[in-house]
C-alpha cells in the first residue's frame, strides 16, 4: 500500500532529521511510530504528504511516487491521504460542519467552497461522519466552542471526509487527558478496522502504543531502530530507542494511572454527574 524507500531529510540548517528510512505499510495495518522528541517522527509523517519536502528517497502510494509530484498532482495525491493533528488544528472560527467539509476542498472548485455550496453527497457524508464520532448536534457550533476530545473527533471526521486511502496521525492524544486519550485511540482503531484503512500514528506514549497498535516502528535520531509487534517491545528495545530509563517503573505508573482513572469514573458516577 505505502512503501517508503531510503527516505532522507536534511533541513537547511544542516540538521539531519531522517536518514535512510525504509518501511512499508499494508492495507488495514495500523502502525505506531515511537521515539524520543526530535527523533524525526513528525518530519517522517509530514514527508509522506509533503508538508515537509523530503531531500531524497521515494514514497510510493499505490503506483505514484509522492516525492516526485508537481504541485497539481501533489494536491490530488493529498486528497487520498487524511491527516489528524496534535492540538487538533481545526480552523477555530469556522463551524464544526465547515471544518468537516474542508476535507472535501481538494474535490470541489474554489467557487463551490467559497460559497459553501458543497455537493449533496459531501454534506450527507459529513453528517454521517459527525454522527459516527458522536457530534451530530454540534454541527453548527464554532470549533472553538468544543472541548479537547470533541475537537479531536472533528479532526478525525475531517480526515475521513476525504475518503482517504491512508491516514497520517500526528500525536493524536498529546493534549488530552489519559481517559480521553484512550477513547480517541479506540475510536481511531475502530474506524481504521471498519474501513480497512492503513494508518501511521506518531505517539510518544509507549504504553498507549503497545495497547492499541498492531505494529510498532521505533525511530532514534532519524533512523529506524525497531520494527515489530508490540510484544517484541522489550525493555532492551526501549533502551535502544530512548536510552536508559527505568521501564518497569514507567509501566507501573501507567497501571496507577488506569487505577486512578477507574476510581475517578466511579467517583463521578457516585456523585451523579
Amino acid at each position, binding site marked *: 500500500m505505502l512503501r517508503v524507500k531510503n527516505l532522507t531529510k536534511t533541513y537547511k540548517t544542516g540538521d539531519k532529521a531522517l536518514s535512510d528510512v525504509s518501511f512499508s505499510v499494508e492495507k488495514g495495518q495500523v502502525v505506531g511510530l515511537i521515539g524520543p522528541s526530535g527523533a524525526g517522527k513528525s518530519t517522517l509523517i509530514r514527508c509522506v*504528504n509533503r*508538508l515537509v519536502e523530503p531531500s531524497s528517497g521515494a514514497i510510493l502510494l499505490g503506483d505514484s511516487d509522492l516525492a516526485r509530484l508537481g504541485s497539481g498532482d501533489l*494536491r*490530488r*495525491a*493529498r*486528497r487520498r*491521504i487524511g*491527516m489528524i*493533528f496534535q*492540538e487538533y*488544528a*481545526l*480552523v*477555530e*472560527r*469556522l463551524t464544526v460542519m*465547515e471544518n468537516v467539509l*474542508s*476535507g*472535501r*476542498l*481538494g*474535490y470541489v472548485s*474554489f467557487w463551490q*467552497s*467559497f460559497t459553501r455550496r458543497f455537493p449533496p453527497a459531501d454534506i450527507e457524508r459529513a453528517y454521517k461522519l459527525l454522527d459516527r464520532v458522536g457530534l451530530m448536534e454540534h454541527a453548527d457550533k464554532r470549533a472553538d466552542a468544543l472541548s479537547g476530545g470533541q475537537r479531536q473527533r472533528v*479532526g478525525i471526521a*475531517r480526515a475521513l471526509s*476525504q475518503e482517504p486511502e491512508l491516514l*497520517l496521525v500526528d500525536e493524536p492524544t498529546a493534549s488530552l487527558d489519559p481517559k480521553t486519550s484512550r477513547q480517541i485511540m479506540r475510536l481511531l482503531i475502530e474506524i481504521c478496522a471498519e474501513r480497512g484503512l492503513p494508518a501511521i500514528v506518531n505517539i510518544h506514549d509507549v504504553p498507549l502504543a503497545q495497547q492499541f497498535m498492531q505494529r510498532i516502528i521505533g525511530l532514534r535520531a532519524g533512523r529506524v531502530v525497531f520494527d515489530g509487534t508490540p510484544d517484541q517491545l522489550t525493555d532492551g528495545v526501549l533502551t535502544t530507542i530512548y536510552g536508559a530509563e527505568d521501564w518497569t517503573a514507567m509501566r507501573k505508573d501507567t497501571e496507577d494511572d488506569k487505577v486512578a482513572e477507574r476510581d475517578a469514573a466511579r467517583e463521578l458516577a457516585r456523585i451523579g454527574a
Partner: protein
Amino acid sequence: MTSYPTTWCRPPQIFTHRGWRIAFQVGVLVWFVLAVGTIDVNWERVVAGAERGLRFVNGFLQPDFTSRWKDISQGIIESLTMTFTSTIVGVAISIPIGIGAARNVAPAWIYYICRSIIAVSRALQEVIVAIFFVAMFGFGPFAGFLTLSFATIGFIAKLLAEDIEDIDEAQAEAVRATGASWGQLINYAVQPQVMPRLIGLSLYRFDINFRESAVIGIVGAGGIGATLNTAIDRYEYDSAGAILLIIIGFVLVAEYGSSYLRKFLQ
C-alpha cells in the same frame, strides 16, 4: 547548612556596563539642552499672537453654528462622503495587497512588489499627497477621496499582512493537507483567522479618515476642512469654533461606535 543571600536587585538589562549607562544618560541630557537652546522664540510675536489666540478661544466659547450653517452642513456631508467611499475603496484595494505582502502566503517577488506599494503609501504623508492630487484634479472632494484611499492602502495592507503572518500555521497546514488550492487555503485557513481584525482595522481607519478629511481640506481637498479654512481666513473664529466642535463630536461618535462594534464582533 548553606546560607543564601537575602538581598537581590534586578540586573541592568540594556547597558550592562555602568560607564556606558552614565555616558548615555549624560549624552541624552546634553543633546536635549543644546536642542532647546537652538529653538528661536520671538517673544514679541508670542505676545501679539496671544491676543489672537484669545479671540479664537472666545470663538470656541461662543460658537456660531447658524450664520454659516449652509457651508458647514455641506462640508460635513462632503467629508462623510469622502470618508465612506475612500474607506471602502481603500480597504478593497488593501486586501489583495495585504495578502501579497504576507511572507507566509505569497511568493517572494509578489511579496516585494506589495511591500514596496505599502512603503510608498506610508512614506507620503496625507497632506503632501493631497497637495499633489489637488494639483492634478483641482480643488474639491475628488482629490480628497483619492488621498484618503491612497493612505488607507498603506495602513490596512500593512497591518493585514502582519496579521496574516501571525496566523496559527497549524490550521493552515491542516487545510493544506486536505489538498486545498491556494485560494481555498486563503478562504478556509487565513480568512477566518484575520477577519475580526480586518473589520476592526477598517472601522478604525474610517475614524482616521474622517479626522484626516478635516486636515486635507485645508490644502484644498474639499470637505469640512475647506469650510474650516475659509472660516479662519475670514477671521470668523466663532464659526471656526463651531466647526471644530462638530468635528470633535463626530470623532467621538466614530470612536465609541467603532470600539463598540469591534467588541461586538469578537
